[in-house]
């Protein structure tokens, strides 16, 4: 992998090639491998290595970006030329700020960010053979239960860096391993997924057994009519659905009047048991401690006891907000270290979501035991926004949907379509588990609890 020192040399070469007022260079890439299995067979098995350099130049308030994955002199010359020629023909942007120096970006270097170590040699060293061995164990579980397994076992090491002409130099390295398993029976299925920077935190066998158990126990699903049901959402299902609101926790989204929080910051929007922070340093979180301009990410309290307290900001969005009509109604305003690389239209977004633990956490088993009639949901699928201001979302249940009656699981049910307002859902939480690191397919990884929610709005039932 590219090292910080090598990247520094590349940056120095680029700096010399550029005549721009300011230069900012992003580095990203790494090594990634993924072993994919289906029908109890490894059917796809891939590996790649790539390094990308992305150059932003600035001429008197005009800026643009060009990107390449070639590091030879001619390619670097070309990428600088492309960035400069694009930048020169832009209109000057009065909101564009000078690139930040370390002092204004939250600290001298990334070492001042309070993140945990996220690079693990054991994860980086995972070989194709060891991934195949892991898959073999998963397939053995499937064979034992007379099921068919599909899924992935992936691993990789990555870097992100940012260097600018005011002397800012940030670098972050990380590893990641992930296991996702679907167990298929004739008319049912079960699913589990987990990831971590440290492969030691993954337990493929336990995931396989749980997915298999779900497939077996939901066999021959019956049809339960759609309607408003009490649901118990496992953490992956919570993650998938709540992830759709965090694009709106952005100063730019408020300024653009595309956020459902417009006019609602400071008011109680959700139940008092909902408290959410964005915290890159949380021990169950992952990712780099700086944003697309190199500003260190701050811990931000987004929701406190159901009241939306503030949103996140890139540097220029914060300055615009301070001059806007909303400045007195959006809570604290200031760069929080959540900006995307410039130039962009979206501004910023919180990406390290952590739900606070409930005062009286319950296990999923306790939630089931206290439910007279409801639906246990393992996973949600194909979620899309139907109505943006009440945050009505639609989607399907998938891979392990159970009927709960009289405090016990009563077998599988056919999958439902939901059309549910996130505001309504987060106002109707009756119980939560201890938050865990969860991952799904509809949203980014976060630290969320399982939730028991009343009056969840299922509108249709599908055929399986």
């Amino acid at each position: 992998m590219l090292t910080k020192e090598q990247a520094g040399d590349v940056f120095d070469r680029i700096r010399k090639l550029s005549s721009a007022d300011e230069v900012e260079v992003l580095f990203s890439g790494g090594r990634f491998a993924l072993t994919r299995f289906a029908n109890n067979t490894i059917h796809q098995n891939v590996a790649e290595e790539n390094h990308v350099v992305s150059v932003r130049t600035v001429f008197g308030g005009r800026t643009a970006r060009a990107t390449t994955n070639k590091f030879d002199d001619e390619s670097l010359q070309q990428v600088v030329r492309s960035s400069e020629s694009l930048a020169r023909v832009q209109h000057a942007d009065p909101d564009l700020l000078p690139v930040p120096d370390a002092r204004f970006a939250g600290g001298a270097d990334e070492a001042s960010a309070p993140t945990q170590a996220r690079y693990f040699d054991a994860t980086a060293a995972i070989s194709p053979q060891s991934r195949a061995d892991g898959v073999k164990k998963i397939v053995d579980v499937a064979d034992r239960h007379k099921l068919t397994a599909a899924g992935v076992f992936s691993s990789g090491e990555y870097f992100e860096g940012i260097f600018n002409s005011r002397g800012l130099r940030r670098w972050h390295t990380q590893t990641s391993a992930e296991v996702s398993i679907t167990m298929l029976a004739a008319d049912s299925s079960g699913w589990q997924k987990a990831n971590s920077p440290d492969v030691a935190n993954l337990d493929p066998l336990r995931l396989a057994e749980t997915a298999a158990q779900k497939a077996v126990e939901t066999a021959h699903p019956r049809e339960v009519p759609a309607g408003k049901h009490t649901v118990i959402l496992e953490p992956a299902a919570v993650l998938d659905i709540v992830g759709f609101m965090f694009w709106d926790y952005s100063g730019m989204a408020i300024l653009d009047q595309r956020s459902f929080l417009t006019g609602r910051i400071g008011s109680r929007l959700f139940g008092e048991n909902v408290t959410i922070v964005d915290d890159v340093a949380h021990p169950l979180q992952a990712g780099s401690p700086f944003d697309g301009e190199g500003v260190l990410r701050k811990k931000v309290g987004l929701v406190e006891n159901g009241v939306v307290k503030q949103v996140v900001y890139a540097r220029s969005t914060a300055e615009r907000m301070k001059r806007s009509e909303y400045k007195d109604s959006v809570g604290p305003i200031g760069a929080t270290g959540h900006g995307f690389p410039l130039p962009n239209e979206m501004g910023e977004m919180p990406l390290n979501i952590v739900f606070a633990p409930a005062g009286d956490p319950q296990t999923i088993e306790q939630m089931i035991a206290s439910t007279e009639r409801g639906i246990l949901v393992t996973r949600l699928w194909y979620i899309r926004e139907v109505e943006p201001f009440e945050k009505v979302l639609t989607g399907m249940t998938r891979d392990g949907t159970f009927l709960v009656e009289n405090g016990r699981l009563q077998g599988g049910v056919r999958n439902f379509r939901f059309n549910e307002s996130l505001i309504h859902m987060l106002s109707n939480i009756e119980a939560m588990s201890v938050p865990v690191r969860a991952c799904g397919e509809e949203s980014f990884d976060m630290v969320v609890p399982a939730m028991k929610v009343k009056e969840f709005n299922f509108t249709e039932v599908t055929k399986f």
Partner: protein
Amino acid sequence: MKHVANWTLNAAASQGATYADVRVIAQRSRALSTKNGKVGSASDSESVGMNVRVIVDGAWGFAASAELGRGAVEATAARAVEIAKASARVKKENVRLAPEKPAIAEWSTPYTIDPFTISVEQNIELLLRIDAELRSVAGITLAETNLNFSREEQWFASSEGADIHQTKLSTGAGYAAYAFAGSEIQKRSYPNSFGGQWQNKGYELIEELKLVENARRIAEEAVALHKADQCPEGKFDIILDSSQLGLQIHESVGHPIELDRVLGMEANFAGTSFLTLDKLRTLRYGSDLVNVVADARQEHGPGLGTFGFDDEGVAAQCTPIITNGLFTGYLSSRETAHTIGETRSGGTMRAEGWNRLPMIRMTNISLLPGERPLSLEQLIAATDHGILMHTNRSWSIDDKRYNFQFGCEIGWEIKNGKRVRMVKNPSYSGITTEFWNSLDVICSRDDWTLWGTPNCGKGQPQQVMGTGHGAAPARFRGIKVGSAFKGN
């Protein structure tokens, strides 16, 4: 690039590969956008690299590298072989490839104007003119525009002797106007939502789209939606415009016919399919009027699924998918063709770039137009009571592709052959085969458009691919409308 291919194939063969193919790819793209009178993004990017796919001990391996020097590509080939040997430890049977006569060919997207020759100043001026038109309408709170161009040059070679050089060009453009008022956000897009219209052609597409000419109307519609009535709930006859119908085809025909899904290869992520193998040539997918093809050939049009050869070196083909309502074909590959009794791949394998594995992707999955001359206005005139819906706003379908729900940006209630009122938040839902069997009229060729979907996601690691969908407006009888808003 021939030398890179030779180094790779020789290295793979010397280490035990019984089959190998190599793709060397150079991609270039430009993305320009504006938001509320300012340039939102301006970026150029290029990505160059190679990959090698091998079969060793009857199992697949794949490795990719951005380095094209001899040592790097030989090491990449060795890595692919090592990976294939690991794959062979968990297999039930050996990979079987349908035979394919190795092609030696050159192919490129036909175009009139290379979009990369149009100055950035000219493009930004166009986008800002559209932006100004949109925001000249009182009530518009957010205007967004975009232009996108890409070129991909690929050299494909295989251990069987294929040697194909292919260059694909694509162009996309569109815009959206948002109106926020009270507690409601309404939106209109042109010529389609989610980035507009995309085709495999040059800058001539931009000139054909009449972007500036339609901007004021689109903005006025976004504002007018605030005063429109909520779309009624119940069972209605509905007419879908061609862009919404294009997405309906994508989700409820294009995905379920992917043979890898049918065979369970996508079960962990994208899902499976209700179209099990027993349904081929037995399932009545739609009414007699429904004829759908998967056509990657240039003569079908400049769709995002148009090419000369797929990424296994198989020439573009046209496969009948639904013939007079009967389900007649899948999208297949060299590895899967035998499972449906075919002796040749349908030629649908494509990869997002040099670092991704080819897999079965939609080409141009198109509903053929009605044979009897019929325009949209004539179809409206022939409808007693129904809802006309335009331009997708939300889309969702289950993981076997049965139950779907779509929302559109704008609708009109039709009574006695006339549009009587605009309605907001129109949506409809149903079960795939019941829906296609309810189709009773399709407009004719003059109203048929080959739409581009630039953002189809599939695979692990996920790949984004462009697909094409030709459609003319059509009417469906007795469809459930409005359940998206039921209970909220």
